[in-house]
């Protein structure tokens, strides 16, 4: 399903109480929020997504920055809910750095999975090899489609630090994938 575009006009209409515009915001952002939460191994990703929008929608009239502002606020709330959820479960995602030499997992053949679609389980398995902050930056950049600056504001780091985390995350990702150490 292609992503629906979120425009400033839609946000302005939603702020004025237009229910169609509210629905458009939900349609545009809910899939990304759901994907973000699923990638972070949230069990009840659908329920938490609903919570995010219940929290978000009443704040729409106060949001500045149009569509970008709403997108940033959405993932600020989603990230906070994700952290709360993981804390409540008492099982945060692993934060250790990836060490290829210590990783005994392997796949039989590179050809076997060359054209196979990566399942959610595999995505999680790869992401779990990354430190928490690198994983968060990659998810917010790729799944949430946020800019470096927006990610920096959401996670409370500088733009340079986010860029560095992204670069390191890509290096770690490449190392994990090229060495074929992730099982399907």
């Amino acid at each position, binding site marked *: *399903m*292609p*992503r629906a575009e979120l425009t400033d006009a839609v946000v302005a209409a939603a702020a004025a*109480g237009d*229910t169609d515009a*509210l*629905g458009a915001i*939900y*349609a545009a952002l*809910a*899939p*990304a929020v*759901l*994907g*973000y939460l*699923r*990638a972070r191994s949230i069990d009840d*990703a*659908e*329920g938490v*997504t*609903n919570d995010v*929008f*219940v929290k978000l*929608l*009443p704040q*729409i*009239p106060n949001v500045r920055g149009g569509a970008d502002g709403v997108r940033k606020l959405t993932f600020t709330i989603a990230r906070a809910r994700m952290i709360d959820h993981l804390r409540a479960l008492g099982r945060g995602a692993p934060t250790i750095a990836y060490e290829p030499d210590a990783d005994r997992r392997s796949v039989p053949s590179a050809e076997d999975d060359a*054209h196979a*679609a*990566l399942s*959610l389980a*595999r*995505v999680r398995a*790869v*992401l779990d090899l990354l430190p928490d902050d690198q994983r968060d930056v*990659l*998810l917010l*950049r*790729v*799944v*949430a*489609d*946020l*800019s*470096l600056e927006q990610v920096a504001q959401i996670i409370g780091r500088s733009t340079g630090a986010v*860029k560095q985390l*992204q*670069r390191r995350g*890509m290096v770690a*990702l*490449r190392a994990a*994938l*090229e060495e074929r150490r992730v099982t399907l």
Partner: protein
Amino acid sequence: MSRHSDEDEEMSTQVAGPNAPAPDDQDDVARFLLELRALGEVDPPTPSRELAALLGGATPLFSQRRAMRRIVLRSGIVAAAIVAALIVAAAHQGLPQPAQRVVSNVVDVLTPFDLPRGDVGVPLTPTTPTPSPSDDRPAGGPGSGESSEPGDDGPSDEPSRGAGPDDGPSAGEPSEGSSGSWGGPDNNGGPGGGWGDDGGSGSGEPSGDGYSGAPTGGSNESGGDW
């Protein structure tokens, strides 16, 4: 893929979205990133009852009560800021006299604090003049309350009042031009007594205490002697 001008070339070339190269041409990282991106390209979850009420307009985004609470809160913050600014200005006597009096009265009544009233000539923060080294009088000299006595030594209080050397301010009289906050001279008899004293001695030189009384209207005339 990205709506943003991506500074990270690797990210932007590998996660190119619709313009991404065919899967055969991609490396593992690009494929993984595309798969990752696809996680956010699913159908939105079914809204819960609470969310559906918001989306359908059954629950207004802003309730009247919440809006009213916000207005009251903002008004309170603004009022508190104005009151604080008034009190600070009054503490520094930065208000016009009538306003100064009103604010100080209100503060006096409502709080244990005293604010200057801004009355002309009434010293509000009495200062204790320090004897100058050149002042060879014993303690309790011109700056002290006892210093009004030297008027007896100098030109007598009554005849010389206003006619002393340099027309210095006499003891106990409000000095012209002095602000209320400048509490130096009069009540303590500092300059008044001091001038009387000096006048009595005929030296005409202001002592340190005399200088502290300089800002008064009367002492301005003595400036020429300095």
